């Protein structure tokens, strides 16, 4: 039983940290920071899903922003159409899952740089379709997306009165997503994924259905991204074509790489910090360059991620 407590402790600490951040910021009358922290949470959800796919299962995806965009735009279209606005997020998630299933079945047969280019192409296609279709607002995107009403007066909305609750909603979903991912990674399935990453043929030889596992984690990571996109679209009351572009896709890969590839906590930390700084404008005009630079630097010097390198340095005397 102490084992279980040890596993849950970090999550509880994170929850405590989240609460304290909110309390402190509100006390300092600086809760406008909460808005960017909330956005940061939704982007972190994408990174967590991608971490499962790239870090644990070892399948690269250079077009993951495409799933974020599919989720966001689906929600936006349904919500602005007015008929049944509460359908927007669930439908967005289902549509993203369906697309990822259709794309994943053929594409996951590829490996290495072919997989990278194929997923890149997928992201590109999504991007071009968004830019070319009037329904999606083309270059202007979709704006005036109404808030997404939940229950008991809660809603996903960017308005000031909803600021604090949205901070908790967003980070609550991230905590749940992290918890589920941690469970998965420590389980029989998680070991199977790591085995696939390590040696696909050997994994098959012990009875693991490699193709099915890859597809399942691909869809799961797409669902994380689609959900994040749908929620952020409501929070920002708008979505633009850049959310599905290659720059964003590269950004997510950079975050997972910086966090340590197969390190969910590392990805969480890297993503929360870096996206928050980016949203605050800390990188100014060099925003995209910073993430590109981070990706190059990590891939050159520390491909297993910064945290793994630090761990190694600690172990060697």
């Amino acid at each position, binding site marked *: 039983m102490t084992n*279980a407590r040890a596993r849950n402790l970090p999550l509880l600490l994170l929850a405590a940290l989240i609460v304290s951040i909110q309390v402190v910021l509100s006390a300092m009358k600086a809760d406008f920071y909460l808005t960017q922290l909330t956005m940061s949470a939704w982007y972190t959800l994408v990174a967590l899903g991608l971490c499962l796919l790239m870090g644990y299962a070892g399948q690269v995806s250079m077009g993951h922003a495409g799933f974020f965009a599919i989720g966001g735009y689906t929600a936006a279209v349904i919500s602005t159409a007015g008929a049944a606005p509460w359908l927007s997020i669930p439908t967005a998630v289902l549509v993203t899952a369906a697309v990822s299933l259709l794309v994943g079945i053929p594409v996951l047969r590829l490996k290495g740089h072919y997989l990278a280019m194929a997923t890149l192409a997928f992201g590109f296609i999504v991007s071009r379709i968004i830019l070319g279709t009037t329904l999606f607002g083309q270059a202007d995107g979709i704006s005036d997306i109404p808030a997404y009403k939940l229950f008991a007066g809660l809603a996903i909305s960017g308005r000031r009165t909803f600021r604090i609750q949205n901070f908790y909603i967003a980070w609550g979903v991230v905590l749940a997503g992290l918890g*589920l991912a941690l*469970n998965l990674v420590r389980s029989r399935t998680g*070991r199977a994924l790591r085995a696939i990453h390590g040696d696909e043929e050997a994994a*098959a*030889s*012990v*009875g693991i259905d490699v193709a099915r596992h890859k597809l399942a984690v691909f869809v*799961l990571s797409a669902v994380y991204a689609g959900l994040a996109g749908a929620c952020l679209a409501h929070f920002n009351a708008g979505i633009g074509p850049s959310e599905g572009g290659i720059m964003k896709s590269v950004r997510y890969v950079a975050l997972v790489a910086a966090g340590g590839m197969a390190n969910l906590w590392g990805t969480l930390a890297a993503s929360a910090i870096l996206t928050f700084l980016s949203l605050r404008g800390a990188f100014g005009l060099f925003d995209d360059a910073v993430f590109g630079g981070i990706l190059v630097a990590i891939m050159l010097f520390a491909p297993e991620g910064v945290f793994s390198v630090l761990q190694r340095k600690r172990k060697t005397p």
Partner: protein
Amino acid sequence: MSGGALLCVRDLHHWFGGLHVINGVEFNCESGAIRAVIGPNGAGKTTLFNLVAGTLCPTSGAIELQGKPIQGLPPHKIAALGISRTFQSTRLFPGMTVLENVMVGHHLAEHGGFLRDMGGRLFNSRQENRMRRQCMEILDGLGVADLAEQQARDLPFGRQRVVELARALASGPRLLLLDEPACGLNPSETEEMALRIAGLRGRGVTVLIVEHDMSLVMGISDRVVVLSYGRVIAEGTPREVQANDEVVSVYLGAGDA
């Protein structure tokens, strides 16, 4: 074709392009016995192994497990039918400990699934503990329980081989395929490996070994098949095969005194 045969290979043919690498190979593996396939380089041993293990699909012929045809099935389905294998170059999962490697081998013995596993400890704690215990037992049975928490890739080669054997045994297979188990081992390690394999006889595991090293094979096998250029040239007990003139000439070259 007699009853009591776990594996039947019937009239197996395989072509690589224009090369007829497996030419009408037929033999059985008796249940609970140790069967070896030997032959000089290029005889087709590896191809035969890959055909049985599901890595390759034979051009024609049948491979049957207790009467059920398995040729052409993908490797993970073959594993699900109770056939485990090792690799010639010992492919343990890098980045995982010895115990984790064996637990992956135990994959089929338990059930799960993405949704259930995401529920975590709530559903799985008893299963996890059971898996750990059973896998530690297997490691213990092979005398390497003390290596459980070490990173698999840090082990010396000989130990890695034993761990791979443990992983293959973890699923409780009916038939164990060993791909050149003595490859890369020194004589004393080879002897240890031979003892381990012989020890499997009593545990209801049928073993099919593809091997180059005579000393390992002749000491522990019940029956031997000799391949040369894709054909079976001899079949029988180790002693019968050793005395076979054609076998001797194939290995030593014709015309030797």
